C-alpha cells in the first residue's frame, strides 16, 4: 500500500488563464495523517482543497488521491466547506443521507426512500457526532455548532478515506471549536487522512502533525506542527 494518500506535484491554478492563485505547489499527505494549511485570507487554501476534491482542475501539474485499494473515488473524499454547504431546508438526517447518494444507485432514493441499513448508518453517524436527538430538525433551526456536527456526519456517510475541512470551526467559540475538533480526531481514527485549513495556530498545533504555510498561492514552509508558534509563523512570513 502506498504511504501517501494525497500527492500534489507542481500544481498551478489560474481561474482566468492569466492570474495564478496557486503556484508550483508540491504537497504530500501520509495515510492517516492530519495536515494543517495556514495562511492569510485569499492565499489559496480553499482552491487547493477544491483541487483535491476534484471540484476544479489544476491548470498545470498533477494530483494523486489514493485510497487503500488504489485510486480513490471522488465520493470517498469528504469535503466540509467553510460555510458547511448544508441544505438548510432539509432535516439533519436528510443532509447526512446526501452523503450516501453516490453509493446507492437505487431509484427510491430519489424519493427519499433509503435501504434500512443506510438509514441506520446515518443515525449512527449523527449519534457519533452527538446530534442524533435533532435528526428530524430542519438545519436552519440548528445552532452553528450543531450544524458543524451535521456536516461531519454527512462527510462520514460518504465512507471517506480523506476528509478536507475548510476553516469549518472558524465561526465557533473556542470551547465548541475544541469539542468539534476533538470529535473529528476521534472519528478520524488511524486510517483516515485529514486536511484542515485554519487561521488558528493553536488548532493547527494541537490537532495536526504537519503544518503547511501558504501565502499568495505559494507554499512557503512545511514544518512539524509541534514547533509551530506565533514567532515561528512571524519568522516564516517575514
Amino acid at each position, binding site marked *: 500500500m502506498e504511504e501517501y494518500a494525497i500527492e500534489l506535484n507542481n500544481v498551478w491554478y489560474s481561474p482566468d488563464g492569466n492570474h495564478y492563485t496557486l503556484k508550483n505547489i508540491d504537497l504530500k499527505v501520509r495515510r492517516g495523517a492530519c495536515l494543517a494549511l495556514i495562511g492569510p485570507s485569499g492565499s489559496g487554501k480553499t482552491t487547493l482543497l*477544491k483541487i483535491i*476534491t*476534484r*471540484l476544479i482542475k489544476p491548470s498545470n501539474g498533477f494530483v494523486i488521491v489514493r485510497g487503500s485499494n488504489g485510486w480513490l*473515488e*471522488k*465520493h470517498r*473524499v*469528504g*469535503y*466540509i*466547506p*467553510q*460555510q*458547511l*454547504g*448544508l*441544505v*438548510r*431546508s*432539509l432535516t439533519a438526517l*436528510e443532509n447526512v443521507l*446526501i*452523503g450516501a*447518494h*453516490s453509493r446507492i444507485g437505487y431509484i427510491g*432514493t*430519489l424519493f427519499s426512500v433509503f435501504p434500512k441499513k443506510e438509514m441506520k448508518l446515518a443515525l449512527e453517524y449523527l449519534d457519533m457526532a452527538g446530534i442524533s436527538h435533532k435528526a428530524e430538525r*430542519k438545519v*436552519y433551526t440548528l445552532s452553528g455548532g450543531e450544524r458543524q456536527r451535521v456536516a461531519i456526519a*454527512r462527510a462520514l456517510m*460518504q465512507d471517506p478515506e480523506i476528509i478536507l475541512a475548510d476553516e469549518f470551526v472558524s465561526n465557533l467559540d473556542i470551547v465548541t471549536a475544541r469539542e468539534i475538533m476533538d470529535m473529528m480526531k476521534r472519528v478520524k481514527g488511524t486510517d483516515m487522512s485529514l486536511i484542515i485549513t485554519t487561521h488558528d495556530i493553536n488548532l493547527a498545533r494541537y490537532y495536526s502533525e504537519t503544518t503547511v504555510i501558504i501565502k499568495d498561492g505559494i507554499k512557503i514552509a512545511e514544518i512539524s506542527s509541534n514547533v509551530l508558534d506565533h514567532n515561528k509563523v512571524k519568522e516564516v512570513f517575514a
Partner: protein
Amino acid sequence: MNYYKGNLLSTAIFSGIVLYLAHSVGFFDINKLASGSKNLIIFSADLFPPDFSVTETLFYSTLETIQMALLGTIIGFVLALPLGLMGARNISGGIISAVTRFFLAAIRTIPALLWAIIFVVAFGLGPLPGTLGLAIYSIGYMSKLYYEAFEAVDREVIEAVRATGISRLKEIRFVILPESMNHILSQLFFMFEYNVRSSAILGFVGAGGIGFYMISYIQLFQYQKLTTAILLTLAVVLIIDFVGSRIRDRYLAQPS
C-alpha cells in the same frame, strides 16, 4: 468633481427626464386633469352602492374565472419547472440555457391578453382559450423567475454536495429545489393571484369568466353591478394571498 456634486448632477438629470416624460404624456395639462378628475368623481359615485342582486350569477362566473386561473397556473407551473432548470446557467449552462432563455423571452413578449385572442381565434369563445392563454403566459413568466431563483442558490452548497459525487438529477432534487422552494411557492401563489386578475380581463375578449360580465356592465353603464364583480374578484385575490402566506409560513425555511 467631488462625490456630492456628482450625486447632485445625476439627481438633477434623473429629475429632468422624469419631468419631461410626465409632461409629454399630459401630466401638466391642467384643463385635461381637471375635467378628468371631475369625470372620475362622477364615475366613482356611480359605482356605489354595489348591486348585490347579481351576486349569484357572478359567483358562478367567478368560479369559472378561478377554474381558468387555477388550471392555467398549474399547467404553467408544471412546464415552467423543467424550463427554469434548463434556463439556469449553473445547472444546464451553455447553449441549452441560452436557447431556453430566448424561447422564454419570445413567449413573454406576447401578453396574456394577446395569447387569449390568438386562442379564441383558434378554438372559439369560452374558458378553453382563456386557460391556454394564461398557461402560456405563466410558462414564460414563471420560468424566468425560477431560473433566476435556481441561479441564486448558494454556490458553496452546490459545490459541497457535488463533492459527494451525487448525480445531477439528485442535485436538483435535494439541493436546487429545496433551496429554492420559498421562491417557487411564492411565485406560484403570485402567478395564481395574477392569473385570477388576468382572467377577469380575458373575459373582455370572449375567453369566459367574470370578465365577460364586467365588460357587459361597462358597456351597459351598469356600474353598481360592476362594483359587485370587482368586490368578488378582490375577495378571491385576498383569500389567495392569505392562504399563500399561511402555507409559506407553515412549511418553508426561514432565512438564517
